[in-house]
């Protein structure tokens, strides 16, 4: 059952070939058997999951089910889930139980999905390897000595190992697309404002966006249909008519212009990754698409700009974790400042502390203009580069990550090398655009490589169509790590 796509599972549920309780039990069993090797979940609750599955079965029996009713899913552990722990991969929130559901959680629950667990992640979504989690690193199902990418590494690994057919994630600088690439699954980050940030614990508010992982572009469209939508509780949520993300999937690619940013195909890109991506572009051309060279001249500035803006917002967003009202509080403290100092020093890991320090610095008096303000100006230039590029193409293609999955520990002591993992994804976040990654081959060590597609604002349907047409002709997305076979 776990090898089926989301739409096949939905069809099976609708035809009563199996019940949601059976399906959920099957995936819970897989989690029990395999997650010891992966550590992709922080919390799994079989009782709650089976109760939700029974409710979904009742709904299906009444003929009131939708395409997601009865489908087991997992949420990245920074989506607030009422009655479940929401840890953000941090000691700070190790025991915090949210009293409410995030908007995305609420919507997916209303669609009838069955929550089986909360997935592991880099602490507060800060990382590209899932090694900064308080709950230990997640391992890549293709090679458990390697990282799954991050920060949504738990969701990517769980979907790759077929411990769950789909999972949510968040993408602030590439945290869905890079792990999707490293784990050989499909992952989408929609346009900023498409998915409500309400109940998504904030890392960098102007960059954070919820999205999803699944086997294929078609699966992603189904999850997005259940997840996205306007929410008045998020002032940056965009009030648009409801979108059917699957509406364009079937259209062939003839006449489509695919932009290839010359800056993406430079010496920084590993040859094995380049070969896979070029091969994917060739397939798009074979289907009638026209490759067009485009330029993103400020691409080189994206990583430095991001590492000013994201830490600046994070330093402020994470101020609420002060040990006063909830979260970790130091056992022994003297005065108020000591309470803050110790609670935060104990509650936050090294990477989070590093970013709080950087963010505090760039917002400080005397540095604000030179760093934060300057970064905001460059951010606008980066967005303008994309606007120019989209004048001559319909969708942009390139790599999602600069290399295949790397061994645990390889980059964890070198933050700058780690930050360069997001070289190809980060500018999308700075511009607020949608992007996705789909499997497009295998590189060194037989590890998966992802093709990144970038769409114009709210042009997810076209982006998903390109990915779906590509997947109709290829089977990279159907390849499984050995761990997913048993």
């Amino acid at each position, binding site marked *: 059952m776990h090898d089926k796509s989301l739409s096949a599972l939905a069809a099976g549920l609708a035809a009563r070939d199996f019940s949601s309780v059976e399906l959920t039990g099957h995936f819970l069993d897989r989690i029990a058997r395999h997650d010891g090797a992966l550590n992709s979940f922080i919390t799994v609750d079989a009782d709650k999951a089976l109760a939700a599955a029974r409710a979904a079965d009742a709904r299906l029996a009444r003929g009131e089910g939708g395409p997601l009713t009865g489908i087991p899913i997992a949420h990245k552990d*920074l*989506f*607030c889930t009422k009655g479940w722990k*929401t840890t*953000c991969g941090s000691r700070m*929130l190790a025991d*915090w139980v*949210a*009293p*409410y559901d*995030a908007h995305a959680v609420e919507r997916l629950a209303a669609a009838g999905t069955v929550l089986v667990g909360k997935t592991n992640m880099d602490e507060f979504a800060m990382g590209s390897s899932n090694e900064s989690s308080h709950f230990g690193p997640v391992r890549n199902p293709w090679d458990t000595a390697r990282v799954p990418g991050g920060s949504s590494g738990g969701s990517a690994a769980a979907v790759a190992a077929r411990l769950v057919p789909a999972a949510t994630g968040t993408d602030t600088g590439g945290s869905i697309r890079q792990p999707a690439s490293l784990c050989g699954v499909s992952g989408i980050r929609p346009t900023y404002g498409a998915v409500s*940030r*309400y*109940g*998504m*614990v*904030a890392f*960098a*508010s*102007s960059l954070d966006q919820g999205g999803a992982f699944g086997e294929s572009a078609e699966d992603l469209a189904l999850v997005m249909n259940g997840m996205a939508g306007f929410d*008045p*509780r*998020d*002032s*940056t949520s965009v009030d648009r008519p409801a979108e059917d993300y699957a509406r364009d999937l079937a259209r062939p690619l003839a006449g489509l212009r695919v932009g290839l940013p010359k800056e993406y195909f430079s010496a920084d890109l590993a040859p094995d990754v380049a070969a896979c991506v070029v091969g994917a572009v060739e397939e798009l051309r074979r289907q009638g698409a026209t490759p067009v060279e485009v330029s993103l001249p400020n691409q080189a500035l994206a990583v430095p700009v991001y590492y000013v803006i994201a830490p*600046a*917002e994070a*330093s*402020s967003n*994470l*101020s*609420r*974790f*002060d040990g*006063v*009202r*909830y979260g970790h509080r130091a056992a022994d403290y003297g005065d*108020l400042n000591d309470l*803050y100092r110790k609670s935060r020093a104990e509650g936050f890991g090294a990477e989070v502390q590093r970013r709080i320090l950087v963010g*505090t610095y760039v*917002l*400080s*008096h005397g540095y*604000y203009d030179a760093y*934060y303000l300057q970064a905001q100006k460059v951010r606008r230039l980066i967005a303008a580069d994309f606007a120019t590029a989209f004048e001559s193409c319909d969708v942009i293609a390139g790599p999602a990550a600069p290399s295949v999955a790397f061994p645990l520990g390889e980059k964890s002591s070198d933050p700058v090398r780690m930050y360069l993992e997001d070289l190809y994804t980060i500018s999308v976040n700075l511009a607020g655009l949608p992007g996705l990654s789909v499997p497009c081959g295998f590189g060194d060590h037989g590890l998966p490589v992802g093709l990144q597609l970038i769409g114009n604002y709210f042009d997810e349907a076209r982006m998903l169509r390109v990915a779906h047409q590509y997947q109709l002709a290829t089977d990279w997305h159907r390849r499984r790590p050995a761990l997913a076979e048993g």
Partner: protein
Amino acid sequence: MHGDWEIVIGFETHAQLSTVSKIFSGAATAFGAGPNTQASAVDLALPGVLPVLNRGAVERAIRFGLAVGGTIAARSVFARKNYFYPDLPKGYQISQYELPVVTGGEVLIAVDGVEKRIRLTRAHLEEDAGKSLHEDFHGMTGIDLNRAGTPLLEIVTEPDLRSSKEAVAYAKALHSLVRWIGICDGNMQEGSFRCDANVSVRRPGGPLGTRCEIKNLNSFRFLEKAIDYEARRQVELIEDGGRVVQETRLWDPQRGETRPMRSKEDAQDYRYFPDPDLLPLAITPADIERERAGLPELPGALRERLMREHGLPATDATTLTASKALADYFLAVVAAAGGESKACANWVLGEFSALLNRLEVEADAAPVAPGALAMLVKRVADGTISGKGAKEVFAALAAGEGAVDAIIEARGLKQVSDSGAIEVIVDEVLAANPKLVEDYRGGKEKAFNALVGQAMKASKGKANPAQVNEVLKKKLG
């Protein structure tokens, strides 16, 4: 002025906007609820929650901008002011920094009949913090977040005030204005209207001195005392060869002094930056027109009208428009009296205002209805009672003794205006006081007044004095 020194004062006022719910959450803003019963997930800053702007707060800010003649920004920006404090749940306050909702404008004040326009620098929207409760927790601190997220309009002046009297006049004028336009209840005890004063001293015409910010000025009386104290302190310090240090000082009403709270050296770096959770605040011309249409006649316009249409002197017009309740009361009296504007103004500003002060109530809660005062004005005008009798009637009205005519009747205050009766009395007085008559005829003007007094006494005060005068003059030829 303190000797050769000039006091320079600027004001920062936090007016709590009278919205039902908070500025960024749906929780209630009512005063006095049990601790933390009016704090939602947003006010508690739970992980994952987001602020949503209450348009009611924006509407009130627009009304204020219109009332002071300021510029209402088409686009203003909310910013985060970052600092750690237990009653600041997010670790930052959402405020406005570089682009406030209102810039400029002015407030008219009058001190001892001299009018002055106080320029405003800006007014911006922000959220209030919670409260730290240091008592009753045995060495620990309690946190009440009911107030967290309450909408505030911070109104900042230029350093245009030159005395504690002007400062009080400004604070009162602003206090009246925010209530006049219905954006703040003005309750100073509950903290709905909080003033901080920036005080410095200088030689007249010289450069501005170093300022100190005085906090905790929660009554007009404290405000005046605190500024006087602070100015004297600074003058004495400088004259003794010292130097004023820029700092924040707290007014201690028990000791009647200001004392240091924190110095500029301790000043925090608030690391302001635009709040990415909120879009820039857009205000359209239509938004502004909608608020303009809903505004009552503003005090400045009414003041002009009282002078132009009612012929009142500027000082009367200024005082009558010091509060909306008083102005409304006055207009109601004039309407009921069918004119007699000046007499009505005299009553409202005289006996009636004295009564309000004594009872410590606003005009709309006074025990004398506008219709009753109007009747009293009419009874004086038509000669039914004397001015002296009218004061007695007013006191009786205030004591709730009934309607004007009934009181006049019951107390026998009706003037004798029957000329026959007055002639009889005058004849008797002239006959009984030949010495006074002789003195008057001998050129002693005072004797005439004595005769009037005798006649009034003989009538037991009921004779119409004007008529007594007239008859006496005729008889004395």
